């Protein structure tokens, strides 16, 4: 671990909706350039944390900083450092894929919006669908477009709120590949997920948010230490249904 300041730092975060206490003192930090998974069941407060970090919601107490800026004191600097991909693909269904990308590029005052859009369309395999309205896209295509929109302007920190919820296995693997690619190029990724497998595959560090607090956090190896040591057993390993599905689907020429 380097001594660089964390890309995301959260401390003592509290948030209630009326009488319902959603966050009861959440603390964690995310090292720059790493993938951090916030794991939790539905309603655990993952989205609330992400909304606070994206300056969409104010915490009741506690501090939250992104890229060295405080979310309450310097919200504009925070917004310039992040991109949010929300739980539901926040794309404009009436515009075409390319128009969505050009729109975001113009809003972020990026040079050559058209060029930026075309590059991203190619990278995310959407070139053929570029001129079609997003309303005609599949769930996986929408999600890819959504993530592509988040990359415009090269924000150093990206929040992905349940990026693979509702995707088929192939779509999920594509998104995983992109997330890994982002981290490899130095972007900090904070992702929330309810899929244990996703956290296991992608994350450098994992935190489990349960009933408003982080109950466990660390690397996968750290978390494994919390359980009894692994036993060696001889078991014939059957292929998982996912492996079968992918194998069968790949045989078909598309």
């Amino acid at each position, binding site marked *: 671990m380097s001594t660089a300041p964390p890309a995301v730092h959260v401390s003592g975060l509290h948030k209630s909706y009326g009488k319902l206490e959603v966050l009861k003192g959440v603390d964690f930090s995310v090292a720059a350039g790493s993938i951090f998974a916030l794991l939790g069941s539905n309603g655990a407060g993952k989205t609330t944390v992400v909304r606070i970090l994206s300056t969409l919601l104010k915490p009741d107490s506690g501090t939250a900083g992104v890229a060295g800026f405080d979310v309450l004191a310097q919200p504009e600097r925070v917004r310039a450092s992040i991109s*949010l991909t929300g739980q*539901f693909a926040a794309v404009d269904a009436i515009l075409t894929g390319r128009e969505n990308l050009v729109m975001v590029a113009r809003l972020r005052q990026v040079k050559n919006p058209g060029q930026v859009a075309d590059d991203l369309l190619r990278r995310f395999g959407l070139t053929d669908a570029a001129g079609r309205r997003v309303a005609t896209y599949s769930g996986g295509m929408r999600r890819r477009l959504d993530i592509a929109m988040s990359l415009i302007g090269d924000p150093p920190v990206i929040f992905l709120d349940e990026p693979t919820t509702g995707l088929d296995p192939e779509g999920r693997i594509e998104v995983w590949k992109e997330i890994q690619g982002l981290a490899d190029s130095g972007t900090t990724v904070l992702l929330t997920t309810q899929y244990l497998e996703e956290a296991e595959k992608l994350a450098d560090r994992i935190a489990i948010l349960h009933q408003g607090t982080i109950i466990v956090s660390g690397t996968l190896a750290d978390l494994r230490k919390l359980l009894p040591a692994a036993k060696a057993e001889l078991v014939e390993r059957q292929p998982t249904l996912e492996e079968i599905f992918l194998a069968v689907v790949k045989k078909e020429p598309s």
Partner: protein
Amino acid sequence: MSTHVISNTGVMLGRSIRHVTRSMDTVITVTIMPIAFMLLFRYVFGGAIQAGTANYTNYLMPGIALIAIASGISYTGFRLFNDMQSGIFERFHSMPIARSSVLWGHVLTSVVSNAISVVVIFAVGLLMGFRTSAGVLAWLAVAAILTLFTLSLTWVAMIAGLAASSTDGATAFSYPLVFLPFLSSAFVPTATMPGPVRAFAENQPVTSIVNAIRALFEQQPVGSDIWIALGWCVGILVVAYAFAMRVYRRKIA
């Protein structure tokens, strides 16, 4: 940041104008329904209505324009509501842009799209015999009143779009507004109405706006009507804007 406001708002305007032009039902209802009313009143009821005027098309033009605007702004509420629902509103608010551009994009789209439908309606009116000798200044005054009326109702629509929990809620507020011209001087002189109806008709905003526009087209003195009309529009605008901003602040925390 402030230099971004204009550019951001321009992008937002371009975006929702595309929404208008790409949903044909919007374009059709916003222009066809008032045109249908115009045909109905001119060619069906018109012969029986004693408006005390030689050219009934001239008489009904202002009211038809107001109906078009009142039905047009329901789509403003609808578009804003959809943005709130789809999550794109939150995406915009998490971006390094002037946040005000998100709402102003909708407001300007409302003004532009309603202006287009009013122009179409006046073109049809000309075909049906609408004639005026009004000069440039009078036309500009009419345009200004209609724009102000659009702005006022647009901010009412913004409240509905921000606060609604269903599509119906985001659009239903406009139905009574569409109905208001019928209870005004828009189609028949208020003097023919029974007491309480007449009292309502003569003291609601549409009558003063209709009378002011009519006077401008006929090059008559506008009298106090124009000030009452402007007072209503500015009053509605200020109150609706204040409410909309309150709802907006509560929504974005």
